[in-house]
């Protein structure tokens, strides 16, 4: 079966086209639907297999990144809950990650009660750069199948990407519960808090998280920007037969429904 992807667009979302493209390359059917059509009932979240929140500046990142979008999504809480309960997949990239954490889907499926926040980069500004990530050994998620321990290269582009929790214990819990999906690594391959390898200063290099079921993935860097060969910053030096790192993530999601 070709899974159906629902890409929700609204004011300020701007990575929807390339994210949809990456899903298509991976073998999914991508549908872009404006939030207004979900709010007025014309379309339903539960008619799709994968829910995709792409990057951008929803509502200008006003008040706080992801905040206004997540407030509007609260109106669709019942549909969201039944979508998640069915074991469907969800991804939030960059602004989408900010939305999913602000909404409370990631990490603990506590919709309306956020537990993790993405706060301003240490540098106090937007940064666009290629970063190296590692996938922790203990994480289990359909999105990251067979990727444990692997190193991947993806572009990050954000101003608010530093993971924060209310307490240090809560931060530790993210590791204890195996919710950490990606960590920034330095050129030697070690998890890093050092700028610029870690562009935002996230403690212990957290770059992405999953929810408690593993079905929802949120990440700051943009896998859709490394899902075709020409996008790789050193494509002239890389083996033409390697699959782009970002594409693997989208393919994993598609294969989950096969």
């Amino acid at each position, binding site marked *: 079966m070709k899974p159906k992807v629902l890409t929700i*667009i*609204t*004011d*300020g979302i*701007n*990575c929807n*086209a*390339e994210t949809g*493209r*990456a899903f298509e390359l991976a073998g999914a059917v991508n549908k872009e639907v*404006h939030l*207004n*059509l979900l709010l007025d009932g014309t379309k339903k979240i539960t008619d799709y297999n994968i829910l995709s929140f792409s*990057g*951008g*500046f929803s*509502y*200008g*990142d*006003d*008040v*706080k990144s992801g*905040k*206004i979008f997540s*407030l*509007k999504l609260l109106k669709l809480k019942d549909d969201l809950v039944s979508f998640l309960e069915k074991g469907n997949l969800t991804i939030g990239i960059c602004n989408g990650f900010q939305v999913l954490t*602000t909404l409370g889907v990631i990490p603990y499926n506590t919709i309306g009660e*956020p*537990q*993790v*926040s993405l*706060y*301003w*980069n*240490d*540098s*106090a*500004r*937007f*940064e*666009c*750069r*290629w970063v190296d990530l590692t996938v922790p050994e203990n994480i289990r998620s359909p999105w990251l199948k067979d990727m444990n321990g692997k190193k991947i290269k993806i*572009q990050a*582009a954000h101003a608010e990407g530093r993971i*924060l*929790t*209310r307490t240090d214990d809560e931060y530790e819990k993210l590791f204890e519960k195996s919710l950490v999906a990606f960590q920034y690594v330095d050129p030697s391959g070690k998890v890093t808090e050092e700028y610029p390898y870690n562009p935002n200063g996230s403690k212990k290099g957290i770059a992405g998280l999953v929810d408690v079921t593993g079905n929802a993935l949120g990440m700051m860097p*943009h896998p*859709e*920007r490394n*899902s*075709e060969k*020409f*996008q790789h*910053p*050193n494509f*002239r*030096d890389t083996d033409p037969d390697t699959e782009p790192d970002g594409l693997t993530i989208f393919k994993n999601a598609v294969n989950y429904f096969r």
Partner: protein
Amino acid sequence: MSANIQKISVIPAVSDPKEKHISHQIREFLNIKIKDMKIVKNFYVQGIPAEDAGRIASEILACPITEKYIVNGEFYSEYPKKIEISFQPGVMNPEAETISEELKDKKIAHEAVMISYTYYFKDDLSAAQLETIRDRSLMNAQIQMQLLKKPDDLTVSLKPRKTEMIPIRTMTDRELMEASDYKLFLNLKEMKTIQNYYKKLGRDAYDVELETIAQTWSEHCGHKTFKAKVILDGAEKRSIIGLVKDTEKAIAHPDVVSKFEDNSGVFRFAEADGVEYGICIKAETHNSPSGLDPYGGAMTGTGGVLRDIAGTGKGAKNISSIDVFCLGDPDMKQEEVFPGCLHPRRILTGVIEGVRDYGNRMGIPTNNGSFHFHKDFGPKPTVLVGADGIIPIKYAKKGKCGKGDLFVSFGGKTGKDGIHGATFSSAEMTEKTSSLNSGAVQIGNPIEEKRMFDCLLELRDMDVFTALTDCGAGGYSSAVGEMGEKTGAVVHLDNIPLKYPGLSSFEKWISESQERMVAAVPKEKLDMIKKVCAKYNVGFFVLGEATNTKKLTIYDGGELVCDLDMEFLHDGQPLETITATTKPKTGLEDGEYYEEEINYTEAFKDIISHLNVCSKEPVIRQYDHGVQGTCVEGPLCGKKNDGPTGGCILKPLKNSDAALIFGHGLNPVLNRIDPYKGTLWAYYEAMSNVIALGGDPKRIFLIENHIWPKPTETNLADLYQTAVALSEACKFFGTPIISGKDSLSSTYKSKDVTIEIPPVVCVSARAVTDDWRKTVSPDLKRSGSPILLIGDYSAAHLGGSIFFDRLGQLGTRVPEIKMQTAKDVYELMYNNIQNGSILSASDVSEGGALITLAEMAIGGKKGFNIHVNDKVKTLFAEVPAAFVVEMKDLESAEELVETGLAVQIGTTTSKYSAVVYDFKGKIIDIDMVQIENCWKTPFTKYFK
């Protein structure tokens, strides 16, 4: 009223990186050693009871994890000093609008929302220190103000002014000019032409009419200098626009779809999925607003040029944004900053933040640009913003309006923003400008623009539009004036949704409020528009309709306020005659240097750390250059993605391998020596940029931008020479210029001084190549590869070079090349990139060939060994149409050397060092890590 304004203050519960950043700026650049500063964000909401404020704070305004809030109270009340800053009433604050919309969505009735920031200082600062911090770091008095107490009323309303009748028929010359000054910016000849028109009509003029004429005839919209008759040194010459047209005719490039007739130029690009696509290109300046408010100016400049692309034909999709800045010395002393002007460092950081915040939020990659520093750009910076779009060829041309077609306006509401922007930008700046013309400055709202663009593209694909255009300079006046030019138009100003009540008729008509576009559509399409606009949260209304009267007729509240003949409006402007006089350049001296006294290593380090050469990575990183997923080569390249690319490469269509290559060239200081050769240099730089990356010399399309000091006779002669130079080069190389814009007012005048900028000719180039795989990047790829210098060094002069600048000299001779040689070089480059012989390439530019090679080495983390004979010129001359290339093997290198156009100067090495020999021995042997540091460090300090 103040009773129902609730103040909600929010602070981070964790350490605030913005406090760190701003404190650093204050310590570093204002030399005030503050130790402890806190920032509090305040939201004022009017028209809600106090008990609702807490709910709004916890549900909407404050993050439960990272922030704390207080209602009608104060954090840090123990701090002895504070400054609270907000936007002035009426200045667009997108965030306040978002909050207001969210409150409406939550059915919370309210009257207004305002946001302010309070900066608390634990240090006991003097009043003078606080004022310095306020005026030079925290606030821009053009658009912001200090709040000394809680505001009483946040709603804005103005006293409406009735439309005035101007007794223009009876005015004396002096009265005519008084009426024009600081408002219409027309000259006496033009004012008298208008006077005669009304004498013939036998009535006085409505103010709306005069404003409309002034806007249409402004230099900004009317390009009067370019259309003018030219008398050069006593002989009559073709007008500049005439020269451009002749050039186009001579070239007649088959891929040009439209040129100089629409909001941007369009050329054929590639086919994908059975649809033929074109690329739209445009660049324009936004100098005056950026000089007054760099952030808002660069923002609205970017927003404007993106709308130009979006409003090409029946609508195009933006795929790229570029920016070029010519600025004063960012390290200049505060005491030397001219009255009415901002410090160049503030302009530098402000314009970057403006481009960043607009482009990034729009989701349009900013991937090409440059900086040029010269002290004389201090008071009048050049801020050039450009954009590219992609459009199916079938939508690339506008249709003709017919009687009854509606003019539908999309997007934002109309306020008093930017009144007189079009006319003001054509005027020279004086000390007075900053206080008299504050209406010219505004802030942009990219989210409004983004949703409008998405909505318009969907409507375009439903084939709704006859024509689509943007509201730029001149607002509705220019948009409707252009679309209804051939038919006539009737407009109802009372249909316009206003940001606040009280705008007079002419203000509604010429307001330059951002994020608005106008389409001409057949009446029956209105229902489709309604549906799609509702989906995208985009406002729209019917502004008026096309007629067959050939008149521009405007009503406001049922009253006639304008009744002008379209013909007079568009063709009535008296043709100017410009008298231009060539004067030999005085005060120039040839540069002097003694080879034996040069420390080549020091020269290398100095030149690579020069502000015009050094790495711009701290800026590039702030721009999203990867969004849309189209980037083949971004502004940085190489192993660690830290070498400069020069240009950039995009693959804009998902199902086509065709690539679009970007480059541009300018070197203002050369135009002070020799505007003809300086212009050719800029042309070659743009061409070489795109050819170095693999562009096909036969498929290159150009934009020209002239940013000139005020047109004196000598300046005009210089300007004419640049037009001639461009025309000759374009004809010779067969490269059409399909878009362009001029700005001829970059002179600053105060009581004591007049400062002219070094004249800017910026040539932007776009090249097409069919396969992105057949491009190259500049970073060195291997060790042991032959390094060639390609080009002709027989006229490798040093005039205007960084080498001379380092010695405090300018020089008299601009480096040049014979056109035929350049053409041969370009062919050679293209063929050898296509056949894979060239592994990496970069064109010689500011700093010279050694700098070019060093930058390639930084990208590839390889070193080099080279041998040079004519040391200074080979290493440091900025020769046009010259390239440094890395060849795949000796055999292919020898082949190129045999052509006589190339010499092998050395080889790449695995050791990361730069080694240069002359015939006597080593003259440079330095670790490239050191050179890399010299290159990377200078720009970082402005962005800590």
